[in-house]
């Protein structure tokens, strides 16, 4: 199908690839040009000359910078770590022991999570967090977001685990290793690419979260970047595009770097695909 293509087919493929590349790239152009433009508008234009003045203003806004480099890292990191640990353990158990109906169970939990992550559940979640003393704490946001993301994380992760041959683990068990040891020394290294994908996915979700922090957090010093955006709105309550674009740029860079790093180090891909 691929190896011996006619030149016309190759040209068509290239053309299609270009169109697809442009489809994904064009909407992002503004994010690259506007931050370096001292008077940014909605249009994309090469800044004349490029300027870092916008970033200077943004970096002087301590509230917004703290939101990005402290609060977002705590929330994103916390959710990432919890999801990585909890989902790995759970999906390993679901894949390696016979739990009747576990397929259905995980799907039902995903359905539940779609309800609980929606606006309708925000009042119960607020009251729950209040009873637990978690209002205006990062840990509250982390726990609630973890609960919402967990079913999908397990769902994605379980097939990673299932696609790994069991023969190594079985051999280790036969040699007398304890199940914990087998998990730790044999299985974990094998599923690491899967853990990485799920961890990134969780991080990205928590990094961009808006609704849960809005409902649970109060102090400006605890707010994440999605809410700190409002500090670049004008007196009349409308966005100052110049500063908003610079902040958006800074807000995006960490996710971008993380993805590139992981992709380079481990390869960011689903492992064997997810299937029923």
């Amino acid at each position, binding site marked *: 199908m691929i190896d011996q293509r006619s030149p016309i087919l190759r040209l068509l493929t290239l053309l299609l690839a270009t169109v697809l590349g442009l489809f994904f790239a064009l*909407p992002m152009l503004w994010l690259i040009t506007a931050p370096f433009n001292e008077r940014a508008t909605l249009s994309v234009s090469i800044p004349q000359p490029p300027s870092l003045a916008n970033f200077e203003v943004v970096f002087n806004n301590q509230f917004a910078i703290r939101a990005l480099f402290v609060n977002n890292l705590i929330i994103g990191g916390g959710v990432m770590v919890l999801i990585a640990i909890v989902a790995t353990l759970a999906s390993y158990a679901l894949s390696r022991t016979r739990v009747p109906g576990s397929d259905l169970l995980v799907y039902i939990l995903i359905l539940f999570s779609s309800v609980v992550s929606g606006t309708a559940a925000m009042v119960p979640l607020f009251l729950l967090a209040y009873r637990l003393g978690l209002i205006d704490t990062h840990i509250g946001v982390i726990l609630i977001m973890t609960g919402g993301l967990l079913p999908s994380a397990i769902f994605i992760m379980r097939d990673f685990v299932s*696609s790994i041959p069991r023969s190594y683990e079985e051999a280790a068990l036969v040699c007398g290793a304890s199940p914990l040891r087998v998990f730790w020394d044999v299985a974990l290294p094998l599923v690491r690419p899967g853990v990485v994908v799920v961890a990134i996915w969780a991080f*990205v979700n928590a990094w961009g979260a808006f609704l849960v922090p809005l409902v649970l957090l109060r102090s400006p010093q605890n707010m994440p970047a999605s809410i700190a955006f409002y500090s670049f709105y004008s007196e009349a309550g409308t966005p100052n595009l110049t500063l908003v674009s610079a902040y958006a740029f800074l807000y995006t860079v960490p996710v971008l770097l993380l993805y590139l790093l992981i992709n380079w180090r481990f390869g960011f891909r689903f492992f064997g695909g997810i299937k029923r």
Partner: protein
Amino acid sequence: MEHKPSIFPARIGILFLLPALFFVAIFLIFPFIWVIIISFTNQTLTGATAANPQFVGLENYARLFDFSRWMRSGEFGASLLITVQFVLGSALIGQAGLGLLIAVLFYRRKGWARRIVTTLAVLAWIIPEVVVAFAWFAYLDRDSGTLNMILSALGLGKPDWLFDYPLLSIIIFNTWRGSAFSMLLFQSALETIPPSYIETADVAGASAWQKFRDILVPLLRGHIATDLILITLWTFNVFTPYLLTGGGPTNRTQLVSIYTYKTAFQFFRFGQGAAIAVVMMFINLTLALIYLSTLRRQRVDA
């Protein structure tokens, strides 16, 4: 699913499951049950029914299905119709279609073209929501947006995207936003297909389309089902279009997720909002069953 014997005794399995059970019980099932209960009350956040909510039976549900006006702009039926178009267009055709296209286009190829397209698609998927909204606002702006600058340079005029074609705009937007997941899933699924299948077909002189239809699609059936189930559910719940259009103009992009948001957080009618969430959950459950049974039937036919 294959049924292999357990590697571990059950108690070890439970030990591994404990942390997940903890989260699921407290932060998922508990609030979920709470939502179900609220959906049978007239609970609001302010006003007299905030202090003394009452059980109203199925009233919240009945109101959603009041057929005398449910197709009126801004009502539940109209929102549901918009959402169905949105899911069909952006999830089933857009994301799954584009994801499959990219995966197949670069099947068994490495090279820079694949790397660039894949990276750009993933970027669109992982950029934070608020940022994406600003970027698309700038992209679609009538007078100075990037898209219209290109179109008018090509002599195609300057359509007013968010005003004249709002639903189409958010469908394209959501396709752009979410195709990466399907793409990644199909890419890795394709890698599980033994190369010998394709090579055999090559020898038999099959055309590209035949190979796609007769080899790839049947083998990917399970993956397609999973993909459709997940992206349908996610697309039903997607809220980002609100940042672009606010559900307008004149409610023409009021997805059910936006309808729920307005009911719960603008009118503060939480009982009603909860009922919508429950109805949407059942719609998704039904769709998942349809996907699975369709694909199972095809497997029998094949």
